[in-house]
């Protein structure tokens, strides 16, 4: 039920953002988020953008995994 999907913000107007989910464009509410910008990746849950996805953090997590080494 808490399933959320990533989407890219295309345009913003009042309390609504037009976002692209894998090329499919839908309007979502931005009532739960401030400071959204065009080009941001957001998580969409039941018609609302609930959080911005931080691309730098996404890369950092992968880098941590790549460099992980446990000796036996």
């Amino acid at each position, binding site marked *: 039920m*808490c399933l959320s999907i990533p989407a890219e913000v295309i345009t913003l107007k009042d309390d609504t953002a037009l976002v692209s989910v894998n090329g499919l464009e839908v309007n979502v509410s931005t009532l739960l988020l401030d400071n959204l910008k065009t080009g941001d990746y957001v998580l969409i849950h039941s018609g609302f953008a*609930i959080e911005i996805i*931080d691309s730098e953090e996404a890369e950092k997590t992968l880098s941590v*995994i790549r460099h992980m080494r446990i000796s036996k």
Partner: protein
Amino acid sequence: MGRFDAYHSKVLCDHLCEQIHRLAKRPLRLMEVCGGHTMAIRKHGIPSLLPDIISLLSGPGCPVCVTSPSFIDQAIYLAGQSNMIICTYGDLLRVKGSNGSLEMARTEGKNVRVIFSALEALEMARREPEKMIIFLGIGFETTAPATAAVIIQAKKHAIRNFFVLSAHKLMAPAMEAIVSNDIPINGYICPGHVSAITGTSIYKKIVEDFRIGCVVSGFEPLDLLQTIFMLVRQAETDRPALDIQYSRVVKPWGNQKAIALMEEAFETVDDWWRGLGILNASGLKPKASYHEFDAAEVFQIPANNISDPEGCICGEILKGLQLPVDCRLFGKSCTPENPEGACMVSSEGSCQTYYHYEHRR
């Protein structure tokens, strides 16, 4: 997906699995409390990649599964009143109350409409002012802010024919109840999207008072494997901690705007959970200042207490004490096509995910 494909990388998954196998020395029971995690773990076959000594359990993280059957009865009662329209997320449609489901009520001609967003219910109220629109608010902190935002909008725009029947619940009280009941758990895979809203402070008590590690996890295979690695490392070094694996989405302080909206519109109430009973301050209902939008306050709804179908062990499964395959109804009289218990109804219920991804292997 696309942009985040790397989180499915087989090379990196193999690498993480190797590290987990090297690190894990003692038996561990790790519990997730999010329907999204239940599905992702089974869908990606994560248990089969882990050492046999690590068990993954599903806790009370599917809102549909823990909600009282009497909530369904109340919704069906309201759907039968003249001029009322029930708006619900699809997840709730097939859950049975004492006398059928909302889906059955709809086939009998009662006014039940499936929506994808709480805003659609508000829009319906604007469009059909002669009808009373009842939105069924269900879900944890991921979903509750949207309901709060809509209640606040309804007040702002003086929409008098919009109401919420709330079964919203808070995640942490149930997680605390599990560990207070001495159910053996060595670590929590914490829900990513609940935490995106709440931040991590809700898990502090579990880590500090109960000494159970809590790692907030994303939903891709690499996310889950890294989270399991972090929990194994905590357990092996006997240092339970509060950590965020899903840092691309979750901040320690959460989504402050969403939290503020929830605090504006809701107050906590004691609430009933399948398997756990009544937990203090574990549910949300509209505050007194928003009572005119609270269906439970405005309408006289008959109350009744009903129990689960005979033989159903959903309650024990939701506590991680038994597995779906331990239930004598599982796969026989209880299937996704004809579910008896709530955990088989929802696509993210333990029983339905087990049925799809484990039972047929």
